[in-house]
């Protein structure tokens, strides 16, 4: 059983990655590009100090997004609404954060609170619709995504946009007290000097706290036990006194609050305002990362870093005449491959367990059936 767990948690994602890179290599071959040189270029470009810092920066929103999705997964809830929630939350956070200036720690905390609050509210709508009206959360969160997109576009252009618009259309700049400082000075203590432009986001520390918090909440707390019990067997959980409706609402609130924090790393670490082209797709890619990391915080961290690395290292591809969109293909295939491989391995492990049990009963001495 121990080796079965190793197979599913470590080997399955690895096989999926091999498959994804293999299929992408075939696609490149078909259009007359040597995949090995393409991958080599990615690797050599992606492993520079600057690239590694940006890889981590890219990974931060993906990791938080994956946490938001994963906590829902743990009880069989599928929150597709991270995408809309984080865009709306980042917009509100940017607007509110630009209205005042107080002590740095308080200012940043206030912005985080606004973002988490907006995200939690947005997910709460889906939770209430599920509990009170029986609307499946997948459908409601899909619809809420588009509503959030429309609403944030409307609010951005008509309400929150800065009056003194220069060349870029954006909200007002957040005062410096609301920025999350870069970690580069700490890197310098270890003798790592990065070129200007590559600032390791201070949000990294918050993300680590969130990851550890997720682990304790899911695996060590009473709430987490109820959460997992509801996911494995809702009927049994209900019979043992877990209120399924409360669990849905609470889980959606936590998931939404996490989703609200997805956009914080780029917002407070890089843009310091909400521009019209605020980065998209962290929500959907977060689902991919959660699947890749099998809802385990360490696994998801690796998954997020991998996606962040691909995103960064693909930038070199355009310079060597390789379409960088190949990375999106790899990401799409990885999602599909990892769940398929997991399914296949689980079947294999299952069969082996059954075979082992059968072998054990065959050799066991005769026991009266009633006693067993």
């Amino acid at each position, binding site marked *: 059983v121990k080796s079965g767990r190793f197979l599913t948690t470590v080997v399955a994602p690895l096989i999926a990655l091999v498959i994804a890179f293999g299929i992408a290599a075939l696609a490149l071959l078909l259009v007359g590009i040597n995949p090995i040189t393409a991958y080599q270029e990615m690797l050599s470009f992606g492993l520079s100090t600057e690239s590694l810092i940006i890889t981590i920066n890219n990974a931060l929103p993906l990791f938080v997004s994956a946490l938001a999705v994963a906590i829902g997964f743990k009880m069989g809830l599928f929150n597709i609404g991270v995408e809309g929630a984080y865009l709306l939350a980042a917009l509100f956070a940017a607007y509110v954060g630009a209205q005042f200036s107080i002590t740095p720690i308080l200012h940043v905390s206030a912005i985080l609170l606004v973002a988490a609050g907006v995200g939690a509210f947005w997910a709460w709508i889906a939770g209430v619709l599920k509990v009170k*009206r029986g609307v499946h959360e997948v459908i409601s969160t899909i*619809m809420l995504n588009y509503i959030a997109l429309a609403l944030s576009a409307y609010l951005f252009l008509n309400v929150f946009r800065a009056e003194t618009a220069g060349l870029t259309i954006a909200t007002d700049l957040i005062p410096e007290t609301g920025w999350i400082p870069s970690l580069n000075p700490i890197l310098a203590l270890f003798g790592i000097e990065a070129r200007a432009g590559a600032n390791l986001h201070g949000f990294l520390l918050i993300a680590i706290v969130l990851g550890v918090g997720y682990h304790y909440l899911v695996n060590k707390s009473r709430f987490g036990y109820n959460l997992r019990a509801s996911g494995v067997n809702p009927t049994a959980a209900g019979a043992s006194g877990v209120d399924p409706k409360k669990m849905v609402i609470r889980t959606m609130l936590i998931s939404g609050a996490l989703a609200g924090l997805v956009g914080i790393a780029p917002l407070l670490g890089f843009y310091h305002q909400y521009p019209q082209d605020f980065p998209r797709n962290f929500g959907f890619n977060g689902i*991919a990362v959660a699947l890749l990391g099998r809802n385990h915080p360490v696994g998801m961290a690796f998954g997020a870093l991998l996606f962040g690395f691909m995103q960064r290292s693909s930038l070199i591809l355009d310079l060597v005449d390789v379409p960088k969109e190949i990375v*999106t293909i790899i990401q799409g*295939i990885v999602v*599909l491959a990892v769940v398929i491989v997991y399914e296949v391995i689980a079947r294999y492990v299952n069969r082996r367990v059954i075979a082992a049990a059968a072998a054990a009963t065959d050799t066991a001495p005769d026991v009266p059936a009633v006693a067993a």
Partner: protein
Amino acid sequence: MTALVDRYQQAGRRSRIVVIALVAILVMTIAELITGTSDLTSRSTASAALRLAIPILLAGLGGLYSERSGVVNIGLEGMMIAGTWFAAWGAWMFGPWEGVLLGIIGGAIFGLLHALATVTFNVDHIVSGVAINILGLGAMRFLSSIVYTPETGGSVIQSPPIGGISNVDLPFLAGGNLFGWNTPDFFGWLENLDMFFVSDVAGVIRGFTGQINWLTLIGLALVPLTAWLLWRTPWGLRLRSCGEDPWAAESLGVPVLRMKYYGVVISGILSGLAGAFLVLVQAGIYREGMTGGRGFIGLGALIFGNWLPAGVLGGSLVFGFGDSLRFRGPEVVKSFILAVAIGLIAYGIYSFTRSKIRAATIQTIIGAAFLLYYLQVEEVSNQLLAALPYVITLLVLAAASQHLRMPAADGARYAKGEAR
């Protein structure tokens, strides 16, 4: 009045739909009278709504086949994206009808992928759908960067302009050409008679039947065809039985896995056709993001229509109508908002007379909110209008999810020969 209400309560489902449609038109006419616009129920609005409804209809029908066979399909959007790209490429390389064919093939490939994951490998349907959507977008952008970027007018996000599919006048009804014979233009003749009301109605019908696109016709024809195929043939019964209870179907000798493959691949074909429609009828070009969530709206139409072909048509017409408002100027939108307010408040009063106090309160409050918005706002923002189909879907779900019935085993994991 109460007698009328009682008659309505006793009426069958079909007559109820007619009543609801008539009441909706009546409410919109009243709103038009108040605001002094007339574009809300005009012929051009109706035909624009029809044109915008077709891709939603096709995606929704695609979802219908898939979900009736028991496979939840939120990958419709990705399949539609594949349809747009391949349709544009086919039309650019060969011709418009080859474009349609290639669009269908493109959608079918992604449908096959979804079937492989969900049916053969038993992957969670939602997960696979999400992957299909990510993959569809990425793969098409990859193809664009290889195929379209080097061409003049093309780039990584769009194809060179391409020719569309021609329109046609229907024979007999609108004087269309039948095997080289110019048939009489019946409704055109009626319209020119200048008879009160008759000529107006004839004009609207002439608008629907004249200069109609071939693909629109095909899309509309698919509704009765689907209803017949799924509800009047043994094949359809088998397919639906897989969506209701695959284990029972298996015990009766239905090849469940094969039927599910049929359902999902057909949904890919229809989504691909929807993409082809967008490229060849509406845009004349492939542009990244041109599907704009219509696959998901199709899913909304499917739910709105209670997993029935005629319902999907109704849902897509509603969403197509909402979509068409965006192109019709601010006054029209305002009168539509007023119509919604009147409709909701009237519905609230109706609920009150049936002593459903809570429902009445909620409906009146939402109606009053719309009324307030109508009175306050100068011009309805296009960005907010874009959210309309999704808001409608959510409201319908919130109001009626108890009355909706999806296929019983929709989304269930099923493996051949295993217990449920």
